[in-house]
Each structure stands twice: as structure tokens, then as C-alpha cells.
């Protein structure tokens, strides 16, 4: 019995690890591309990302996009602390990554997301193509479970 229970535990652990429940905090024009990625034309459900979640307590993948100013940064931190652990973070767009094309330094209101929270995957671009966001999710899965993915094994077997 204990063997079965441990197997079940690993199964649940693996499912929890590979099922991404996203919480999208996005401003500006990058929102459009994220919507495009989540809907029928690119459909990130194929890669194991579920419906966009509104409650931070249930989500474990945070997607930050668009510009981040002082007020917004407090909001992002608050959301991040409430999220399910371990939390993965994807930052999308130049605004979130490096405040570009706004100037950094004195007088700037902009804040990099990486200075606030630990970003796992960076997606450069203004805005990035939906393919770039999808490849970010693939990178994230590679990082979470190293080695060949089930998809690659299946493709190799079919060949």
C-alpha cells in the first residue's frame, strides 16, 4: 500500500509541476499577443497551460508583460507572494525586461521586473511573436524536467 501511495504522490507532484495555471498581469500592447497566444490561433493549452486564472492562490505561473511603474510594482509583488509555490515567472516584452524604450536612470518611473521578483524565462521583443511566448513555455518545461520530453520521445518513436 505504501508503495502505491508513494507512486500516487509522485504522480500528483509531476502533474502539479507540469500543469501551468497562469496568472496574467499585463499592461500595454503585449496584452494583445498574450491573448492571441492563449486563444484558438496559437492555443497554449496544447503545451499544458490551463485557462487563465484570476485568483493568485490557484495559479503557479505568473506572466508579467508591459510596463511596470511604482504603483504597479507593489501590485505585482502582492500577487506574487500569494501565489502557489513553486512559482514560475515569465516576463514578456522589452518594457518588463529592461524598461525599454523608456530611459533608465534618474527621473525614470520605470522598474525592471527582474529587480522585483525572480524571473525564470525572459521573452525579448516589442511585442514578441506568439511563437516566442510558446517557446518560452517549452523552455520552462525543459527547465522543470530536464531530459527529453514526452513529446520528443513520441516523435522519435513514430519515426
Amino acid at each position: 500500500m505504501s508503495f502505491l501511495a508513494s507512486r500516487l504522490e509522485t504522480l500528483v507532484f509531476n502533474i502539479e509541476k507540469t500543469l501551468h495555471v497562469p496568472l496574467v498581469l499585463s499592461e500595454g500592447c503585449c496584452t494583445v499577443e498574450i491573448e492571441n497566444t492563449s486563444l484558438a490561433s496559437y492555443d497554449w493549452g496544447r503545451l499544458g497551460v490551463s485557462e487563465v486564472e484570476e485568483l493568485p492562490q490557484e495559479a503557479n505561473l505568473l506572466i508579467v508583460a508591459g510596463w511596470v511603474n511604482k504603483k504597479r510594482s507593489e501590485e505585482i509583488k502582492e500577487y506574487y507572494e500569494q501565489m502557489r509555490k513553486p512559482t514560475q515567472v515569465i516576463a514578456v516584452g522589452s518594457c518588463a525586461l529592461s524598461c525599454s524604450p523608456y530611459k533608465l536612470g534618474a527621473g525614470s518611473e520605470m522598474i525592471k521586473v527582474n529587480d522585483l521578483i525572480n524571473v525564470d524565462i525572459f521573452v525579448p521583443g516589442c511585442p514578441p511573436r506568439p511563437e516566442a511566448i510558446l517557446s518560452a513555455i517549452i523552455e520552462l518545461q525543459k527547465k522543470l524536467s530536464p531530459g527529453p520530453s514526452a513529446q520528443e520521445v513520441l516523435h522519435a518513436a513514430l519515426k
Partner: protein
Amino acid sequence: MSVVKRPSPKAKWYIPGILTGLKITIKHMLFNLASRKDMITVQYPEEKFQYSDRFKGNHILTVKKDGSLRCTACMLCATHCPAECISITAAEHDDPEVEKYPISYEIDILRCVFCGYCEEACPVDAIRMGPEHQTAAPAGDNFIYDITKLAYRAENKGGVLSKVDDQERHKRGL
């Protein structure tokens, strides 16, 4: 006084309404099952979307016929860049016909906004916006693209030839 028209007894039955809604969904589902080729979803890692020729993707530094960089380190692109993400270090070339060349050409891809101004500013077609989409990478990766990555990465197959050739330009007196 507002008069509200009572719904007809037929409208109270919600099941036909649900079925009408489902009819569209089921139609789409059957259509997609019947012809998977016409499905609008792009199956990304296996299937690639065909971009237009004007697509602005990752930068390419073009090369001359002998394989060295076409760039003359004139700094026009770095001056023009709205994000100030290009940094070039110029050096003198051994060949007296070639004025200068870049010993380091770096683009901070996290700051780049893929506007294409560098491509427009360049007088000798030395930098181009490539046909690949932007590259997502995990934290700790190198996000400052150098000459090896920009000019000689695997997708470029040993370097993309510049449209401008030295001899032709000299003949035309440029």
C-alpha cells in the same frame, strides 16, 4: 410608466437556446476533425507560421564575399537606435581600402524593441532584421548578442551575403 413585454412561452425554454449555441461549437468541431489541414490553430513546435518578407526578427549582420563583416563601424545605427542598445567598438583595418571595422558589435536584446531603425539607417546593408522570431531564454543566458551570434549563427548558414559589394561601389565612384 415602463411597460415590459413578457417573454413568449417559447423563450422560457432554455434547452433549445443551449442547443443553438452548441450547434456552432459542434459545427466547428466536426469541421476541424474532418479537415485538420484547414484548422486555424498553428501547431507551433512542429508547424511554423509563414511570416511576410518584411518581418522584423532577430538581427543579422551581413558579410562580404570573403566572409568578414560588411559593417564599417560608422555608428549610424547606434546613433539612430531609440533604445540605445547597440554598442560598437571600432578598430583600424590592415587593408588601406577599408577604413575601419568593428572588433566588437553588441546588441542588448533585452533592450531592443525590434523597430528596424538600425536597418534603415545603415548605408551599406550591413545589418538586417532576420526572418526568425524572437528567442526566449531562461535566466542566466547570454542576452547580449555578439558578432558570433549575430553574423555566424547556425540559422545564417555561415553568413548572409550583403547586397553591396566593394568593387561595384568603387566603380560607381561611391
